[in-house]
């Protein structure tokens, strides 16, 4: 809560007409996007800067956010990617000695409009029942009718291509240039720590803009390809599906995460769909049905791959399943060194249970 005694009122309106009143936090203004919720209890800054959240207005289910401030190292990209933030208690005062700034100042600097004192639990239950939808938050005006008009013009996430908006503009490198292992990353909104996980395992990584032609990738002569996570609807990215198809032809190791997993599925003729309200949190149970071990995973996806199509596909094998809803969490392509997972093994924030997948990928290139 900001130090000023009189906190401004703010309003949140959902596309189905529901209105919630709260208090302003972050930047004073108006913002809109698709509403979603995250159940994680740590790592809010990593979540806010995750490019996969581009275009989303985020509810934090955990009741206190901001307690330990923000810190430069805890970013997953160079800016906040969420469109807006909804919380029960957003904290201006923080306690971390290693922190650089408060959440309030950070959001203000990053132009993020937030609202607090919202019954987030009631809101989450509503989204859980009614499904994902667009919303608008404003701390400038409480004119509900005007805001509803603005909300009506916000495009639906279904069919929306967002990856190219968050992808890098230019190629960049990370890791040891002398390394015998070279990985080409397709950046559709890649998280910083994915690249770090590859570089930490000795790979020399080159990160490419979303619409990089395949020939440029081949020129780099990598030992493997990585297809990144990212925001938006994978079905609206035929260019990326084509890229993956081409890369599969090289028979070089290929690893996809989240959006990358969906693109790999699409490249194999498996359709994707928009989920009712997605999986977002740090506690999703996944079983590796190849090894029999279980892992607690970080997840952030609003689209999924069609489970029936996966089961019927002659080319694809299921490697991981979600223990809660039996949804498909990982696949590999028969006869090809290509695999992908729906969840986030780089897990910032979240449990490190699935980091072995990076070892597996690096191992395939050795």
């Amino acid at each position: 809560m900001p130090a000023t005694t009189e906190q401004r009122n703010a309003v949140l309106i959902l596309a189905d007409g529901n209105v919630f009143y709260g208090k302003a936090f972050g930047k004073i203004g108006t913002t809109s996007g698709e509403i979603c919720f995250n159940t994680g209890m740590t790592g809010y800054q990593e979540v806010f800067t995750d490019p996969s959240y581009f275009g989303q207005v985020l509810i934090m289910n955990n009741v206190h956010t901001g307690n330990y401030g923000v810190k430069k190292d805890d970013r997953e990209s160079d800016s906040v990617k969420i469109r807006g933030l909804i919380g029960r208690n957003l904290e201006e005062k923080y306690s971390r000695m290693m922190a650089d700034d408060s959440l309030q100042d950070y959001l203000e600097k990053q132009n993020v409009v937030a609202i607090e004192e919202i019954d987030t639990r009631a809101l989450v239950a509503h989204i859980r029942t009614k499904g994902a939808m667009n919303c608008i938050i404003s701390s400038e005006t409480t004119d509900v009718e005007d805001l509803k008009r603005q909300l009506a013009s916000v495009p639906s996430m279904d069919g929306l291509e967002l990856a190219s908006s968050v992808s890098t503009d230019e190629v960049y490198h990370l890791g040891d240039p002398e390394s015998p292992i070279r990985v080409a990353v397709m950046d559709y909104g890649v998280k910083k720590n994915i690249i770090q996980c590859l570089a930490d395992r000795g790979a020399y990584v080159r990160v490419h803009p979303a619409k990089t032609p395949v020939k440029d990738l081949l020129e780099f002569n990598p030992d493997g390809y990585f297809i990144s996570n990212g925001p938006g609807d994978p079905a609206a990215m035929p260019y990326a599906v084509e890229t993956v198809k081409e890369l599969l032809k090289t028979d070089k190791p290929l690893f996809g995460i989240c959006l990358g997993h969906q693109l790999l599925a699409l490249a194999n003729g498996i359709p994707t769909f928009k989920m009712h309200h997605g999986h977002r949190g740090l506690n999703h149970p996944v079983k590796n049905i190849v090894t029999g071990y279980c892992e607690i995973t970080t997840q952030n996806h609003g689209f999924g791959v069609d489970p029936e199509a996966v089961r019927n596909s002659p080319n694809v094998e299921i490697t991981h399943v979600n223990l809660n809803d039996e949804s498909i969490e990982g696949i590999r392509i028969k006869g090809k060194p290509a695999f992908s997972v729906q969840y986030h093994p780089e897990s910032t924030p979240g449990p490190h249970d699935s980091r072995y997948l990076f070892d597996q990928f690096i191992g395939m290139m050795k």
Partner: protein
Amino acid sequence: MPQDKSIKTVLIIGSGPIIVGQACEFDYSGSQAARSLREEGVSVILINSNPATIMTDPMMADRVYLLPLTVESIEKILEENNIDAVLPTMGGQTALNLAKEAEELGIWEKYNVRLIGVDIKAIEKAEDREKFRQWMIQMNIPVAPAKTANSFLEGKEFAQDIGFPLVIRPSFTLGGTGGGFVHSKDQLDEALNRGLSASPIHEVLVEKAVLGWKEFELELLRDSNDNVAIICTVENFDPMGIHTGDSITVAPAMTLSDTAFQLMRNTAISMMRNLGNFAGGCNVQFALNPETEGIIAIEINPRVSRSSALASKATGYPIAKIAAKLALGFTLDELKNQITKTTSAYFEPALDYVIVKIPRWNFDKFKGANDTLGLQMKSVGEVMAIGRSFTEAVQKACQSLENNAVGLGYYGKSLMHADEIVEYLKTPKWDRIFRIKDALMMGISVKTIVQATLIDRWFIYEIKKIVDTEKEIAKYKLATLPLDLLRKAKTMGFSDEQICRIMQNGDEEDLYQKRKAAGIRRVYKMVDTCSAEFEAKTPYFYSSFESSGYNESKVSDKKKIIVLGSGPNRIGQGIEFDYCCVHGLLAIREEGYEAIMVNCNPETVSTDFDIADKLYFEPVFWEHLREIIDLEKPDGIIVQLGGQTALKLSAKIHELGIPIIGTSYDNMDIAEDRGRFSDMLKDLGIPYPKYGTAYNVDDAVEVAKEVQYPVLVRPSYVLGGQRMRIVINDDELEKAVVSLLKHLPGNKILIDHFLDRCQEAEIDAIFDGENFHVMGVMEHIEPAGIHSGDSNAVLPAFNLTPLEVTTMEYYAEKIARSLNIRGLINIQFAVKNGQVFVIEANPRASRTTPFIAKAYQIPYLNIATKIMMGTHKITDFTFEKKLEGFAIKEPVFSFDKFPGVSKELGPEMKSTGEAIRFIKDLRDPYFRTLYKERSMHLSK
């Protein structure tokens, strides 16, 4: 891996009598484990010496042994039963130690019994300080620099090497017994000696103290396939240096970044996987350096614990239940989340609320005890509160403590001076959080408080929010208090009474009406393990204030009864009332009513989400109860099962016009009010010790002259004989009265003639309006003057004449009829020279009801509840008392936790728990010793 079908019969070891450091959390875990194993078709044999437990009920296990927790008892059980495996991880340190002892003697091997859940090697690695350290070093996990000493000289040498401040930690002790901080050389000798003598193997760890680091606890589950899940992360409000049982704790962690948390998570997982053969619940503690966010491992407990009971209640995840299944060989991915019923048990609960646990201390009972908190646990109970913010949860926890706090703050009490309070805060005491608030009220800065206490500043900022709001409220009167401010205050957990005290205007009822009219009402939210991500149906609720007004507690159209719990455990009121409440709930359900439980004690079985039809985890505090009543509109409330805590609320329930199930409010008031009760006895022609009341010393001296010395002096309305004294002359009387009035200003003082050298006895009975049934007659071994809770009570009477017993029964019936009791009554007697006097009557379940139920093997609480409800008469039941010989209720004390406290016993209760012992006849050597030494501990 599925269930190991070769395990057909399992022995569960309980934790014995309640002592400081090991309380009814193990009744909770043992009961859950027993139920969980039986769900899988496994037979359960149970041993525990504590009769006040649910786990020792016939309904919980296939066979229950109420025997002392000794190797001899274990051997007897193994001889009489064909047991495949023993589960030692449910009964705390006591059970682990017993399992170890039996292992060393080769008993398990002899009877071909497997240890499940954990193996001995894993226990040793975790429990032996030096082995733990070496293991950590081997795994490259940082620990505080330390050395293990087996002698005084070694200890001194190591202390010199390590430097001050340091910690002395004895090996193999419970609740940190014998441990302590050493800040300078002159404290070393005493600390070393104490530590070495506390350790059963004469071994202590001399360790560098990491004072001021933050302390965290992770509660984990691991299965035989090496799957690990973190069920709960608990942050200690107090920094390192205070036993976690004595720390205020918060979940989820409030000030932990994801990087620091994942480091702990990874470390804990690698520790668990490396521990050895282990499947079940485990607790790992870490200290975090706030400057670098580096961590050190403090300890690992390969068993369920106080913390896992708290974590279960905090998250809704039934750790003991799942742990028991893991011990059978199940893996986590094979089991379902018990709350959602649809998702997996292998997951990490997400919380969308904050829980705060505050320990409950009883230093007033231990005169001369050092009340500084440290490595050795000193609290006797705890409360947990749930809110949608830290401020709300912490204030609700204060309201749950039942120490007259109406929220966070002392109201109407004098404050210290500014410099005095900063100095006071430097030493951790039980009231520190209240003093922090006082300091902030005075305008002392957050920074100064952080420096004095080393508590994380985030928590101090949160308390400052409460303080700022309080200062704002103080500007208004009831009529002028703005609704926005009122709403804000309620959201922060302020109680109505607290707000009135701050304004020095209006009363609780006025304020309630004001906010009710403005729509500022509580809503109820569900504890669902998953932050609302999935739909859950578990009826486990807490209250909060939300602008949305969205209430998740749907009221059914069934007839319903609320059972009030007894709040935090403390001396004089403990686990026995949890036992009573559980049976009450089950009986209510059997009668076709909806059973609703209200309590705030996380160590209880009655607050398990599947015991009642609906659970409100709320303070047993009028305002909270009132709003539950307003929502549920129950057909009645049972106050007889929750001890004095529940009974005390009956006046307000009565005023509100809600039926009290069983004995009426007015009749209970007669029993409770000394004057009215004596008048009644007089009318009934029942003898009672002469008595009088006084408000000051002069009157007291007059009364004493009248009733004659020795006299018993006490305040009215007390629990466990609090501040009760026996005095023999005017001087002593004056001192006692002055002291009483100092602590309880304005209180009415009762002065009774004390029947010196008389015999004490008590009766528990049931009355249904027509029929009277004596459940049991107990005779105390010790003479009068020792509180009944501290006496060895023998069932049935062993020394009283048949005429005396008949007279007692006759009086008891007369009293029950006169009070028109419906349900339970406990009556205490003194017998002198063949004459029977009535000392007091309690119109409710007593400390001894569970004991009698166990000794006679009759479900008395179930019967009593049905009689209270009026659905049954006594004549509907048959009572077959199965007891050969005698049963003795033995008090158990925790004096070793309070060095320097006199072990003398008197009218004020000091025992923390009890055990049951069966003897065949009065020639029993144990009994003869007790009888011979019956006057030894008497203080006067």
